[in-house]
């Protein structure tokens, strides 16, 4: 069992097992704090981080488009959060994965896309085709032929596509702060840290 101090009241905070709390905090924002009994902070972290992530998912979708045959499709949602490493290195995902389980569907969708299996949930978190040439090379028999290319998402979703990716990235990085809080407790203000040595020095000078 580990403990930290409340910066205001200086009461001890029971962190239970910090490793388990950190793991839970990564899986679901706020879950580590819930496990530690810090329920109010758990709710705050969940609402702030998942709210931002959800906003990003909504921003990254909601447009309709026509494929090469003229058929109308809906982009679905969550297009700003996807995993792709070859040929496009989607570095956003390195931060987005900080929200834990909520970003995991992107890995499943990328695996399905790579194995030429039909992506699920209307393309939610599915990687787009890197280029029109690659989609054409895959052929009409490919079950994901109707999926959009990266350039098409840029065009149909406009700036919302990039915003969606960045919001997911920020949410993931904010959860890294929450994981730190679950593992080590709140960070005391820097000024108080500085005051302690000064007080000691004063005591030494008085002695």
């Amino acid at each position, binding site marked *: 069992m580990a403990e930290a101090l409340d910066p*205001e009241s200086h009461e001890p905070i029971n962190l239970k097992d910090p490793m388990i709390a950190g793991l839970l905090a990564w899986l679901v924002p706020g879950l580590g704090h819930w496990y530690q009994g810090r329920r*109010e*902070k758990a709710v*705050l972290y969940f609402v702030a981080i998942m*709210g931002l992530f959800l906003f990003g998912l909504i921003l990254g979708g909601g447009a309709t488009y026509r494929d090469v045959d003229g058929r109308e499709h809906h982009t679905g949602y969550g297009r700003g959060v996807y995993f792709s490493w070859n040929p496009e290195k989607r570095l956003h995902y390195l931060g987005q994965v900080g929200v834990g389980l909520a970003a995991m569907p992107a890995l499943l969708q990328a695996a399905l896309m790579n194995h030429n299996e039909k992506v699920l949930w209307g393309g939610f978190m599915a990687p787009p085709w890197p280029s029109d040439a690659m989609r054409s090379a895959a052929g009409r028999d490919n079950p994901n032929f109707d999926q959009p290319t990266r350039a098409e998402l840029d065009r149909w979703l406009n*700036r919302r596509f990039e915003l969606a990716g960045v919001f997911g990235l920020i949410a993931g990085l904010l959860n890294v*702060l929450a994981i730190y809080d679950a593992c080590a407790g*709140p960070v005391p203000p820097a000024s108080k840290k500085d005051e302690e040595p000064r007080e000691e020095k004063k005591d030494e000078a008085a002695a």
Partner: protein
Amino acid sequence: MFHCLLANARFWTGDLWYALTAIVAISLVYAATRHERMAPIFRHAGRVFLWITGFMVVVFVIMQLISLRA
């Protein structure tokens, strides 16, 4: 000149509304890593929100002025 400034401002402030969501979330999470109780968290988050927003407004105005063409 000012008409041009306002026209630009209207265009860009449309996009800046998206930033509010991120600033609120960032302020709350940052403040929550510094305190344990809700009252000081919300007070600190309010200060962080104002600081970030003020910083962005100052940078926004500077960018607008720089981009003005006679």
